[in-house]
């Protein structure tokens, strides 16, 4: 009993120190100069641009990885092909590579002196230090989130229901939209939430490829850094509070949906008993 209480206390202390305390500090610093200054910091044109840019990047990267995740899980769970295990390993690559290296790789490929740099500049296409590069970097880093969530689920669920749908007269598209996709929807949903949170908060890779042109190629997380470095501490925390709010919102959304659809989630997740 004593051991149990000690363990709970340790866990709580740890959580307070590493999760709750930073959150409180972010908001208290952001609001330290009053609510008016807080909102002034947020409606600054450069910050507004950063918010817009972050939303654009997420709006491209998340759907791209959603589609990729569905396709990958479809391939891996339904078919056995040469290179299947290589594909599974590759999907994990962005997790094991430092985002900074990912960004650097992109510079080496698309930068002015990079592999495709000459061709790109000849055709007047700018990727590095511009939006396309930031989208590419974010997509790469958030690549595994949906796929990792969906593949195990698809593998566990197998092919039986699809075959049943075939015998009941369904065609390929009907099976996909009525059976395969709905079966996976909770996995997809969690994957998208995580993917989105990471896409909006990504720092390392985007930092390398963005060139950090304040007001032009700044995302929210980059804006936090540039504001902090120019000693606008309160404004930096105000922007940081937006990211913190996003994280909280993600959690609340997840919990709310889980609660609302608890019966169905339970029914879908429970393994078939024999």
């Amino acid at each position: 009993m004593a051991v149990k209480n000690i363990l709970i206390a340790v866990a709580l202390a740890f959580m307070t120190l590493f999760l709750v305390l930073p959150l409180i500090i972010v908001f208290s610093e952001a609001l330290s100069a009053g609510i008016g200054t807080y909102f002034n910091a947020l409606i600054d044109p450069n910050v507004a641009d950063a918010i817009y840019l972050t939303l654009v990047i997420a709006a491209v990267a998340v759907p791209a990885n959603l589609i990729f995740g569905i396709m990958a899980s479809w391939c891996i769970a339904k078919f056995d092909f040469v290179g299947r295990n290589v594909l599974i390993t590759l999907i994990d690559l962005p997790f094991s590579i430092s985002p900074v290296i990912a960004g650097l790789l992109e510079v080496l490929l698309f930068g002015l002196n990079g592999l495709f740099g000459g061709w790109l500049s000849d055709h007047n296409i700018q990727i590095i230090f511009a939006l396309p590069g930031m989208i590419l970097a974010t997509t790469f880093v958030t690549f595994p989130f949906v796929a990792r969530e969906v593949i195990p689920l698809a593998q566990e669920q197998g092919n039986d229901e699809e075959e049943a749908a075939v015998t009941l007269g369904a065609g390929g598209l009907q099976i996909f939209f009525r059976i395969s996709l709905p079966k996976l929807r909770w996995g997809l949903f969690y994957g998208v939430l995580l993917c989105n949170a990471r896409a909006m908060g990504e720092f390392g890779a985007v930092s390398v490829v963005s060139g950090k042109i304040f007001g032009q190629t700044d995302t929210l997380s980059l804006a936090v850094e540039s504001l902090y470095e120019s000693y606008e501490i309160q404004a930096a925390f105000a922007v940081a509070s937006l990211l913190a709010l996003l994280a909280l919102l993600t959690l609340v959304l997840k919990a709310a949906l889980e609660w609302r659809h608890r019966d169905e989630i339970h029914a879908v997740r429970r393994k078939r008993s024999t």
Partner: protein
Amino acid sequence: MSTEIDIAGVVRRFGPHTVLNDVNLAVRPGELLALLGPSGSGKTTLLRLIAGLDQPDAGSIKIDRADTLHAHPKERGVGFVFQHYALFRHMSVFENIAFSLRIRKAPKPEVTARVNELLKLIQLETLAGRYPAQLSGGQRQRVALARALASQPRVLLLDEPFGALDAVVRRDLRRWLRQLHEEMNITTIFVTHDQEEAFDLADRVVIMNAGKIVQQGTPIEIYQTPTNAFVHEFLGESNVLPAVIRDGNVFAMSGFPLGAASAPDGEVTAYIRPHHVVPIANPEGAWRVQRIAATGAHARVTLGRNGLTIEAAMTADALLDSQLAPEKNADASFTGGTLFGKDGEGRIRLLSVVNPSSVVSEAALP
């Protein structure tokens, strides 16, 4: 009018394995047919070929004389019940049953009417809103059946329909399915590895082994005249004794008489079911009773002789009258049996010869 199925020369290979090897089978209109065989005999593969879930490498499958090669499952009019039911886990019972109707874009009132009719048939009207995970095994089984029947298929295929259920539910469902078949008269094929289930339920049984049909016929025909040693052994346990025929008499290799046979001299293998072995208590007997196990109405007696053991089965009542006891001696006579050649083929009937020195009491006869 019920549907007939004609399967001719069907071959199916998976890589180096030939899973079905020249299978020919005519399924009669409205019959309830069992595909019986050990696992790996190809029975489920055959069922999947009929449903169109898989394609044969050679041969043809005709449903009502129309070749089904390249026909989408949708056009075959086949209802399939999967071994683990494969119910749509994200749909309620109602939506599961309605699926094939919705796919065919049936009008809403028609869907509701048909689903309700089926819910009534499977006696699950009150559970229409439940999800499959909230149902018992027997209920899931019935939902799977209703789903397969919803679009009024010509043929109903069931893969190990009772495999995952406990004994009591299994027996009830079996009766219910039989009754349902009699009412609807839809051509039905089910796959099973359970001999008792096949014999209890089917009009006709097809026995498969290693990708081939070994024998087909009514349950009685198959039980009485198994075509080879495999079928005989698959249908129930036997005492297997190497034997020899000499001048119409059959002897076990270890020297004692088994009975008579009208067949030329030669080496054979005798398959004697336990209920054809009749032990008689006799202090001078050549057999020794090693063990007696009574399971309710039936009893099993294990007899030993020079390192050889055989099993006898009798009713518990007959055991009481027999005065058999463990570690006591006994005689054994054989009231029937089947002989096969060394290759397991060429069935010869073993005729019983009443040993004049033994007195067989009426009660001891099975």
